[in-house]
Every structure is written in C-alpha cells, then in structure tokens.
C-alpha cells in the first residue's frame, strides 16, 4: 500500500492505526481543545495510559501498568514513524514542544509554514498520501502508526492504508464529543486478532480484510 508511493521502498511498509474510544464511540468528550485535549470528562478515556484516574486539573504522573503497559510497549517496539493530524497536535499542546514518540512524527496540516524548529522533532506535511509516504520512508523496516485524531484515522481507513487497527475501549459512556466513525459511510470487514483487558480498558486488535 504505502510502498506504491515510492519504488525506492523495496518492502511494503505496514500501516497500523490505534485510538481509544468510549463505549459510545467518542474519542474525546465535549469541548476538546488546547488545555482540555480529551474534552470534558474525557480523561477517563486515558486512565489506562496513566495507570488510573487523573485529570487536567492536575498533571498526570502515573504510568501504564500490566497489560496496558504491555500494549503500549508493543506499539512502541513496532512503530518506526507516527502520523497525526494537526488538530490532535494542537489539542495535545504539541506535547509540550517536543516529540514524545521516540520516532519521527509527521503532522498532517494545510499550514506547513507553521513548522516548528527541527529539534522539536515534528515534521509538518501537507497531504495525507505524502505524510504516509514520508513516514513509510522514515520507518525503515518497522511500521507506520496513524495516531489520530478521529478524522485522520477515518481518512486512513477510507484510503485503504490501515492493515491493523487497535481499538482501546474505555469503560465509560461519555454521552457526547467527537465520534471516531462520524460520517464514515463505508463498510469494512475486519478479522479479530487479539484482546487484552485491564481494569481501565479493553484493547482489541483487528486486521482489516481486503
């Protein structure tokens, strides 16, 4: 898939996507934005990332534990580059100004002139195919991860890039916010690969059938 964008890439680079949703399908609660990245009440989506309850009122200090840690570690080990959307980058306040992923991070945006200094570790790219192609190049023999937000994941599905999909479902009904599959009107068949469950989330891994 990604390999079609460059003959110099001899091996086909695998693209995965993963995201956390509430049981009612929201990736953020209402009113998400800078300083409130996961929206109102949305911290509960990411309890699993920090090993338990936290809130925007107080910086989270905990770390993932148990199977949550295993799930994250596995992602870090497989991913050679990450692609995220500009909104997610803004909502996350640019992760405090430096790329937290340990691998090249490509930010999809129409305003590439806002590109921060190179040492921040973010590369702004205009255009989805370009972002995936550059990420594939950077990933070497590892995978490209599409990290969100919802719109970018929908775009990745619609363009047929996603081979593996990791869905973490937090045990909460948010009652509002942004839906992962809002406006997505295509049907996809997936294959169940595996499941991990901690008290804070159920992580289901799927392979997308072609």
């Amino acid at each position: 898939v990604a390999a079609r964008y460059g003959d110099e890439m001899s091996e086909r680079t695998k693209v995965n996507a993963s995201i956390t949703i509430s049981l009612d399908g929201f990736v953020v609660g209402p009113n998400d934005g800078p300083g409130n990245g996961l929206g109102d009440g949305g911290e509960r989506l990411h309890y699993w990332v920090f090993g338990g309850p936290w809130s925007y009122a107080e910086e989270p200090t905990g770390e993932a534990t148990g199977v949550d840690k295993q799930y994250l570690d596995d992602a870090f080990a497989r991913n050679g580059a990450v692609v995220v959307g500009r909104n997610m980058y803004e909502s996350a306040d640019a992760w405090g100004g430096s790329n937290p992923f340990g691998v090249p991070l490509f930010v999809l945006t129409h305003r590439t002139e806002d590109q921060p200094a190179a040492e921040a570790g973010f590369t702004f790219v205009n255009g989805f195919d370009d972002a995936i192609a550059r990420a594939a190049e950077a990933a070497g023999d590892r995978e490209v991860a599409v990290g969100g937000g919802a719109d970018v994941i929908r775009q990745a599905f619609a363009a047929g890039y996603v081979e593996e999909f990791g869905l973490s479902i937090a045990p909460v009904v948010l009652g509002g916010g942004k839906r992962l599959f809002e406006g997505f009107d295509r049907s996809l068949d997936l294959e169940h690969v595996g499941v991990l469950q901690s008290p804070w989330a159920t992580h289901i891994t799927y392979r997308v059938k072609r």
Partner: protein
Amino acid sequence: MSEHTKVKADITMSLDGYIAGRDDRPGQGMGEGGERLHDWIFGGPYDDESPSEATGEDKAFLDEKLRSLGAVVGGRSTYDNAEAWGGSNPYDVPFFIVTHRPEDAPEPETGFTFVDGLGDAIARARQAAGDKEVLVMGGADTIRQALADDYVDELAISIAPVVLGGGKRLFQGSDRSIELEQVNVRHSPLATHITYRVKR
C-alpha cells in the same frame, strides 16, 4: 419477586456502534449487511440453508446468559422487525414486549406479553423472573431508556469485527455519561463480548 432482581441488557454492535445496518425492517431485521453482526450466534456467516450454532467462547457467553435468565424485556420495533420470531417466544422464559399499543397483543400461547411502558415491563419481568435475572434484549431505544431510567445493573456488549458505515446506533442521541466497570471479556474470531457493571 424483589426490587433487587438483577437487570441485564445485552446487544451486539459493530465497531462503529451500530446495532443494525441501514434500512432495518421486517424481513431484514438486522438491516443492510447487518447479518454479519450475528455471525457469532451462528458459528460463522449466517446461511438460511444450513443454520448452525455458536461455538467455543461464543457458546459459553450465550450459555451463561441463558442459565441466569428469568424473564426478557424487548421493544415493540424489535418484535416487529423480528416478525415476532415466527409467532412464538424464542426464549424459555416469559417475554415482555414494551409497546404503546398493548391492544395488539397476540394470543397468550405465543408466549409474548404486551405491556405499555418500560417501567411496568421491568416490574412484571422482575416478578416473573423469581430468583433469576431480567434481560433487556433490545432494541437500541429500549436499552437506552433502560440505562437512562437506571434499571440496568449489567451491560454486555458484543462487538462484531465489522464497520457497517450506517444504520441504527446504540447510543444515538443519548447525552448522559455513565461510569462502567469491566466485569469480564470473552472473545472469538466472530465477536468480543465485554460485560460491564453499571456504577451508581
């Protein structure tokens, strides 16, 4: 009968949160492409010619549910879309159908009891369930209402490995936040069954 008779709700949804595909109606109860939601109940892709049964973890999940079942509550549109399950209650226990038109009630020997209003249906189901549990089996609107009215103690969601791209959403128009606690997960190639306790 007891106020403490446990009430469960369970339903299958797609990854994108639909419990039926587009255009669900009598003769096409699961909507367009929605049959895939229930592959797990039939042990694989549903085939009218050779219907088969749930296997492995899917069967364990179903067996567990049936063991504790004392009475069932379902919505009228689910009843109509399922064409009254061919005219007889598919469960071995009393089945209460929530409807605004109780005068449409079929003969008692069909095993269906029509009740006007969810509250009454739950009360009658609790009475009928004895020391077993009440199951709210759908549809989406009935489950949403049961959650909103705080009847549900346990919610089991079976997630089928399919994105439907349209249809009826379980949580459409529901704006309440609900805290849940995971009780259990079972999975097969055809579904992931997550059981939640509703926190109060």
